[in-house]
Structures are given as structure tokens and as C-alpha cells.
């Protein structure tokens, strides 16, 4: 079989690739041609380079494969990304939003952000690395303006509250949030299900209208992706 790439039927900026063996993968168009971020495979099709998007490494890809109905991250979007680490998912976000968009990458581990800076942001003008603590959102107010989407994956207790604090400063009205909740890192003793619910309650209290809750198995254990619209 021939390799074939086509636009995702629903989500602009996202692609589906059929490989030689007939299997189908997600991909994004590489904004920094020739550069690999986390060992993902590059595919060139009709003169354009794409990066395969691994759902076992990226919760956003996992959520899409698990049937997410709305992907608020689109070409031209501004995104505030909390917990960018060394840029596995953030680089795909950068691909999707393209040159007209911008992603602010907040991360507080110096080692991780150093890698993000040197290996990823350096080659992508639509990414800005920010070494800061997401729990103190005013710490990056000199750099960040209003955004269309906040993507949050910081594996911290009270993620929903941290996200709400960020939304108050930076999220447009009717903007969207995406929140990856890792049950086990918040409270190991409780049932995962209860934990999603507690965080979701916090979101509702803070003027979010919850749209979808997607389990990420088998790609990520005990994780859900929550999307919501901000009515703040």
C-alpha cells in the first residue's frame, strides 16, 4: 500500500496518515521541517512534511482518537499551555495553530524547559517558552495576552483551581479549556472516578460549562481529558 495523507474529516490542522501496512495514524504538518521533537516519524507527502502524532506519548492525540467531538485548538489560535515539559504535545499544538497562531508554554522544571527552548522553540517562532509556576499566573502577565484556549496538563493537586485562576487573567470569554486529569497524582487513596468529579465540580463553580469528559485508556491509564467553555 502507498502512504497517503489526508486532512482530518472534522479537525482543521490535523491529518490522517495511512501507512504502508494499511494502518492509520494521526499527524500534524511539520512547522519546522526536518526537525524531530521526541523521536516521532516524519512523512513527506506531495512535497509537504508531516510528523506522526503518538497517542501513547500525547494525551491530546489520545483524546482525539478516543472520539473527542470538539478540538478547540485550530489554525490561528492563541493557546496558553500549562505544563509543557519538553514539548511533546506542545510541538503538535504549534503545528496545528500554524504561523498565525501562538502558544505560550509554561513549565516550571528548569531542565525540561531548557530542552524545550533549545530543541523546540528555537525552531518555531509561534512558541514562547516561559519558566514559571502555573500556580502564580500573574508571574507571566508581562508576556501573555488573552488566549482562545488554555491547555492544562500539570499533574498537580487542585489542577482545576489553578486552571481557573489562569482563565480569569488570560482566557477570552467563550474561550475553551482542555484539562488532562491524572487521577493518581492528586490523591492515590481515592477512586479515580471520584477524583475526576471533584475537579469537574471545581470547574463548574468557576463558570466553566463542561462539554466532554473522555477516558484516555488504553493510551494513558487513569486519565481523562475534560473540555469546557468559559462563561466567565
Amino acid at each position, binding site marked *: 500500500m502507498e502512504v497517503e495523507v489526508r486532512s482530518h474529516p472534522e479537525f482543521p490542522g490535523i491529518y490522517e496518515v495511512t501507512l504502508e501496512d494499511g494502518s492509520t495514524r494521526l499527524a500534524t504538518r511539520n512547522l519546522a521541517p526536518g526537525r524531530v521533537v521526541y523521536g516521532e516519524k516524519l512523512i513527506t507527502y506531495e512535497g509537504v512534511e508531516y510528523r506522526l502524532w503518538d497517542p501513547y506519548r500525547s494525551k491530546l492525540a489520545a483524546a482525539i482518537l478516543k472520539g473527542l467531538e470538539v478540538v478547540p485548538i485550530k489554525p490561528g489560535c492563541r493557546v496558553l499551555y500549562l505544563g509543557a515539559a519538553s514539548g511533546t504535545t506542545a510541538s503538535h499544538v504549534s503545528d496545528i495553530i500554524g504561523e498565525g497562531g*501562538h502558544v505560550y508554554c509554561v513549565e516550571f522544571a528548569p531542565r525540561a524547559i531548557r530542552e524545550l527552548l533549545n530543541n523546540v522553540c528555537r525552531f518555531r517562532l509561534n512558541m*514562547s517558552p516561559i519558566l514559571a509556576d502555573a500556580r502564580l499566573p500573574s508571574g507571566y502577565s508581562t508576556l501573555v495576552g488573552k488566549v482562545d484556549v488554555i491547555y492544562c496538563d500539570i499533574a498537580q493537586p487542585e489542577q482545576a483551581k489553578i486552571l481557573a485562576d489562569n482563565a480569569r487573567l488570560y482566557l477570552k470569554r467563550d474561550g475553551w479549556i482542555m484539562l488532562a486529569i491524572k487521577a493518581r497524582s492528586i490523591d492515590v487513596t481515592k477512586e479515580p472516578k471520584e477524583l475526576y468529579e471533584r475537579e469537574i465540580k471545581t470547574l463548574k463553580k468557576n463558570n466553566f460549562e463542561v462539554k466532554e469528559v473522555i477516558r484516555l485508556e488504553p493510551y494513558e491509564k487513569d486519565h481523562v481529558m475534560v473540555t469546557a467553555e468559559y462563561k466567565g
Partner: protein
Amino acid sequence: MIGGILVRATVLGCVIGILGFGEDNNLVDGVTFPRDAAVVAEKLEELEAGKLIEELEELIERLRGKGYTTFVFERPKIAQAVQEKLEVEVRIESITEAGEVLRGNMGKLAVELGFLEDEAELAGWIHEVSMELTRRRVRRATEKRDLVVVQTIQMIDDSEKTLNLFMNRVREWYGLHFPELNRLVEKHETYARLVSKLGRRENFTPENLMKEGIPEERASRMAEAAVRSVGAELQDVDIEKIRMLCGEILKLYRVKSTLEEYLRELMDEVAPNISALAGATLGARLIALAGGLDNLAKMPASTVQVLGAEKALFRSLKTGSRPPKHGVIFQHSLIHGSKRWLRGKIARLLAGKLAIAARTDSFSGKFIGDRLREDLERRVREIREKYPKPKPKPAVRARRRLARRRK
């Protein structure tokens, strides 16, 4: 105050400069930064630290000239600096209306102030400034952390030495009363704990000992020894002093284990690759011997291999004796757990990997530790299979070589 009305301006810093907003939250004035990302990053850092930068001072002066008397800030540190240095009324509000205007219209305002030609340039500018800022912050966050590692490992080693010194004293002292215990309990910490908890040898009963986690068989052996002890009947005041001493020693053991845990965390941050290959303790010793991570990263593998064996190295240079095969890396289980004749080869291999790990930790911070470790283990297995027996004595080979040369 003008005509008795308080005139408030909100003053906010951002990547384009320092901006002032009036009562109706419209931009009234602004002092823009130079278009140099490195300079701006530095200014933003100063601002963050609560230093008064010239742009801020100038804007406040200009706003005062326009009749503004009270200045609102979102950042407490900046408000405080302005109040102290410029002696004006300040207020702090964590989210201001003006701030909302700024965050929603940064591009437009940048054009209005003549900082940018076109709003579309803003994203590129933010990218540039954020790269500079983050580079500076990373440098600051990681600066000197390797020297904290050095102090920590040295403190751990000092505690170890002190504990040995104290425990030898305690064993001799308590030995007056219960000399047999010395040989029955090898581990210093256990010895100190038993003496501290139980005191007189009469209390070394099987039940008490088992409560302290001593296995049954050993407990009864100890209890027996206590009953038959040839030691002296010391007075209670004598025993109490020894118990107190043991209590303090146990505290020092706890300090030491806290430091060891702390060292593991530090090493994961400062040198995760070295740590993955050599463990936190040995890794930290290497950094200490080299005088810092950057120094270690600059050393060739052959130097890493003999770090800590300087004495033997100098001796060999002076007297022509055989050079050392390994320094502290001998503490690695893959070396001291291997047959004697393999140690030199494994030491060379390990030193090579450690040199790569040190460079990666020092320069890029990327994590390749598990790959290095797997590779190391595989190569060690190969060496063990290839050289199951020691090779002939070097003296014999040297003679052979000489013989060949003569031919």
C-alpha cells in the same frame, strides 16, 4: 488631587514597555522599550525583582505632570518600589480593568505607541523576549546547584566519619558493662538503637529485642550473652549517660538519611544522567572530586576513570609503578562486584559512559540515562563472557614481547 478628586492611573509593564491607563481604562501614555530582546528581558527581570527601571520612573513623572496622583499596580513588588523611591500614593489590585484592556489589545496598543508597525509582529517579538527571559531564568535556576551537591555529599561523608568515631567510643564505653554485644551487633545504628532503648544489659530479653525488630534466633543468642556477661555492674547514672549519647547519635543517623534523600533529589535535577549510571552518591563524589559538574564534563574519560586515585597516580608517575586502574568509580557495583581481572576493562567502559553522561548533564540536560545504563550493562555482560579467566601475568607477556623484539 485636582479639584478634590482623586486621579488614578493604572501602570502596567509588558513586553512593549510601561503603559499608563486613565480612570476610564484608556491608554493615556506609555514609555516603550528599545527593540532589543536581551535588553528588554533584563529590564523585565529587574522589574519583577522590584527594581525601579528608567521607563517606569519616566512614565510616573509624565503621568504626574498630567495630574495623576494615585497609581494602581497589579504586582505588589513594583508598587512597593514606586512608593518607596518616588513617594507617590500607590494601590495594589490583582486584576485590574486596565490590565484586561492590555491583555486583550497588546498588539493594537503596541502599534498605537509606535513600537510596532503592524500587530502581526507582536507574536514574533514575544517569542524573542520569552526566549531571552527563559534562558536567563534557567541559567539562574541551575547556577551553583552542582556546588550544593558537592557540599551535601561532603556533609554526608563527614557525618559518616563522625558516626564511626562516636560509635567506636560507645562500643568501648558500653563494653565495660556488656562487652559481648560488640561482636553480636555489627551494624552501628542497630547497636546505638538497642543501647538507647534498652539501657542495662538485664533489659536485653528476647521479648524486648524482638520488639526492636531483632529476629528470634538472634534475639535469644543476645539475651543469653547478656545473662552470662562478664561485664561490670555499672551504676544507673553511668548507663544513663551512654543512653543519652546513643540517642544523639541516632539523631545524627536520621540527619544523614535525610541528606541522602535530598542528595538523590538534587542529583535528579542537576545530573540525572550521571545519577542514572552511577547512583546519586557515587555521582556526587565524582562531581565533588572534579570541583563541579562543568569541570567533570570537560574531563576526558581517562581522567574520570582515576578520579579519587590521585595519590596512586602520582606515585606511579614518580616511581614508575603500575598506574591505578580506577579511582572512586571502584565503588560502582559493576566494578567491585566483578572479577579482579575484569575491573580495569569495566572501569574504562564505565568512565567512558560517565564522561558522556556528564557532558549531557552539563550542556543539554536531555535525559539519556536509561539508554546509557542499558548499554553499559550489555557491554559488561559481553566482557564477562569474553574473559572468563584471568589473562597471563603481565610479567610473562613483557618477557615474551622482549624476546620477540630481540629476534
